[in-house]
């Protein structure tokens, strides 16, 4: 039984005191890829923001890497070993690809050099672009950069928000295996928010379906794939 990296129990989270997510309980173990599915406004991004500490939970227990995130500054949570690739990618547009990556590195000199190599290995398409300003990259290249940067710190927990957003399917297909590789090779726990159910379930081990802020369904990806119709209904508000 591998270590539980993310342990959320009965979480209510939202903005200005108004909960967007209610009574949510999810978990992610080491080496797992877990998909967080659901329609727009279901509360997926809110959940991720709470996990990384940017939003404070209204109630409930949220433990990341063994410690709570309630009342903890997001930068501290990040330094524990969590990487959050946000929906808007949060790239530094004025800095070059190399500089963006550099900011993601952790550890001493050797470790950082090694991590940089690994990141570029994972996304070889970035190698010729290292000196280009991030703002000038194409959508796919930007997403790759965001992922590479998130991985540059060798995180133990990776949160990815809408990786496929605005990307051509072929590019997404190329990036998905990398997610699987990370989980398998490094033992990181990965929580992916996705609207593309099929794509997400193709690499995920398990999945949760959120609807209207509450957990509508959960199960292994095999279970969810076979219950496709139920998943769709939850998207359209049936459940």
């Amino acid at each position: 039984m591998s270590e539980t990296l993310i342990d959320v129990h009965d979480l209510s989270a939202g903005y200005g005191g108004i909960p967007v997510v209610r009574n949510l309980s999810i978990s992610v173990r080491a080496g797992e890829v877990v998909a967080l599915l659901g329609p727009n406004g279901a509360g997926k991004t809110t959940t991720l923001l709470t996990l990384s500490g940017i939003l404070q939970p209204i109630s409930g227990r949220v433990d990341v890497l063994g410690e709570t995130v309630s009342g903890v500054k997001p930068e501290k949570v990040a330094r524990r070993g969590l990487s959050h690739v946000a929906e808007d990618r949060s790239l530094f547009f004025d800095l070059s690809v190399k500089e963006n990556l550099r900011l993601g590195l952790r550890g001493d000199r050797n470790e950082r050099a090694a991590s940089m190599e690994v990141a570029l290995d994972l996304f070889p398409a970035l190698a010729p672009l290292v000196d280009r300003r991030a703002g000038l990259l194409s959508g796919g290249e930007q997403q790759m950069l965001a992922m590479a940067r998130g991985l540059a710190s060798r995180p133990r927990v990776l949160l990815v928000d809408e990786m496929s957003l605005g990307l051509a399917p072929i590019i997404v297909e190329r990036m998905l295996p990398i997610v699987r590789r990370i989980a398998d090779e490094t033992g990181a726990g990965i929580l992916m928010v996705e609207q593309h159910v099929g794509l997400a379930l193709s690499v995920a081990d398990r999945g949760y379906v959120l609807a209207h802020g509450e957990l509508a369904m959960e199960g292994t990806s095999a279970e969810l794939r076979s219950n496709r119709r139920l998943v769709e209904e939850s998207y359209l508000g049936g459940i």
Partner: protein
Amino acid sequence: MKDAIAFAFLGLGAGSFFALMATGLVVAYKGSGVINFAHGSVAMYAAFTFNYLRIDGRLRLPWVDILPTHQVNLPVQITISSGGKVNVWLAVLLALAMSALLGVGMHYLVFRPLRNAAPLGKVIGAIGVMLYLQGVALVNFGSENPQPKSILLPDTLFKNFLGFGKPMPGENLGLFIMAVLVGAVLWFNYKYTRFGLATRAAAGNEKGAVLLGYSPERLALFNWIIAAMTAGLAGVFVGSITGALTPTKFTTLIVPALGAALIGSLSSVPIAIAGGVGIGMIQTVTSTWMTGKSWFPDWLQSGATDAIPLVIIVLTLFLRGKSLPIRGNIEERRLPLSPYPKRIGWHVAILVPLGVVLAYGLPGDFVFAGLSGKWSFAFMTSLIAAMLMLSYVLLAGYVGQISMVQLSIAGVSAFFMARMSANGVPSPQDPFAVSGPGLPWPIGATLGIIVAIAVGVLLGIPALRIRGVQLAVVTIAAAVALQTLYFDNSKLTNLMAGSNAAVPPPTFFGVDVGSTGPRGLTDSPKFVTFCVIVLAAMCVIVSNLRRGSTGRRFLAVRANERAAASAGIDVARTKLLAFGIASGLAGVAGVMTAFQQQQISSSNWVYFAGLIALAFAYLGGITSVAGALIGGMLTGSGLISVFGSHQSSGLHTYTPLIGGVGMILTAIIHPSGQAMLFQPLLQYFGRWLKAARVPEWLVVARRLGPYVVLGLALGAIGINPWRTDEWSRPWMMLVGVLLVLFVRSIVVRIRSGGHEPSSDSPAEVSA
């Protein structure tokens, strides 16, 4: 031509100063998104620290001993060298350490608490820091104003520098080299080090930096320290060529530095340095070489130097305005709520007669025994200040435009009216009469207001492309330029140098309503009534604007310009309308000031006073008409400050200090200003009085009673040593009660997590 270039080289001294200051401004902005208007004061304090270490070997800490007792004292001075002078390089080190300390203080005490505040809040915070440092410098260093000491190469001289025929003092060259070196070091830092990269990253996308594990606050702290230390360097090294050290030194020199920082787009240190040096050289060539040429226009002779930074700032912002970095914080609170005015009729019906009663009562002795002259004058000052505050309320409170130039616009209208009313006939009161058409005062005043509106709209044009703090920078530059180009320029005003422009008193159908009362003092009840009526009318106008569709358009533009545009609001029209109306209000304030003082000069409209006026408007409550009224009472020489200084003359030296701290506290804790604090109170009180029965009285008595008693005791005993007369004891107790209740309100707010009271009860508030 050769001469011009030679003079340009001589401008390297001033240019290096601007360059160093600009560097600090850029670094501060990169680190925390704040344009620090107090930057010059940091340089000033460092310069004072250094020079006094060299004079008497004592290090003054940046605070004063507020403990009233003589036994227990806050340490304010540390004697480093009891022999007198401290070694030069040790003194430099200590001065830089002091700057670093100031940087730490600014971060933790002012700008970190303000990190989520609206841009106006940060501006007020910076003004508060400036006032505070000036006040501390005055108390700690006295008014000696020593000549600063030179450090770098004071005795070297390069004759015939580079062959252009003029010498170059080694010191100026040394300063230039130092500025370049500092620039190089900082350029390297921000380009290649992790800290520098992280700073640039956080400036571009704070959330991204946070998610990578960087603490924006840590980054801000270190950048503040760097920024403050560059200011310290500027003050200590370049201070020697800038002349006498006074607490208000460098406040005007911040404008060219701002221009240079903007040339550097608030992000590139090397370009800012080049900009600063460039501005210094251009200013020097203009003031020494060009003014001697016959083709140089007469009326520009004295104002050209100050006009240059304004032109540069406007051009830079216009051409590059869209690409300037506006830092997006993770969670930025908007300006405080602007309450919907209700029941304005009732307020007018009650307050206007009250005003008239005071108008007639204050000069008489029944309210304040034997001290009439000053209360009437203070009341007048408060009323007229409130008129100016309305201008700020409308522009900054309703439309979100930070304009520092409203006082100057008031000046334009006052000067114009004075000129229109002048008829060139000297009198004992006015021996240096200006020539003019001698128009009757209503026409003169109207013309003055119209000109003010025109100037205001003109100055509003940059606002179409420039937003937030950048607009503040433009308006400061404009205020400085107006001062030297117009008010001080006798070629344009035709005023005899140093003499004031006389203003004949207004009359209504033959009745003299001028400010001079029967005893020759400025306490005429008719004038006060005039002011009350004018102010009431202005309040009604502003209130109705707020209630109507114009007000809604204003607020929409304030909230989100793009959204407003997409909702069909003509943003440009709305902004210009706002500038126009606000300038009209300011124009009225200017005209009334002229009537009150009966003679005006450029000193009435110094740009620094404009900054303070904005700060008081904020203190009072920048988003409501009531706030303007309270701001007027609070302003210097207004009712409350005169009352305060009457009670305790010992506090006089500490006024800038208290003002500065008050501004910072208000920006942090009560961003809506005092109006929002007292207004619901007063309002509750009114309705409550009508409805309350004994049980309610008991509840309140139990809740507030102990505090009231504490306040009475505090007033009677604690504040007692500062009172001036026997009869002020009861007033002291009242002050004590107010103070205790105020502190209690702050504590309650902090405990409740800082939620705006108005957001909890929006329906309760009114004008």
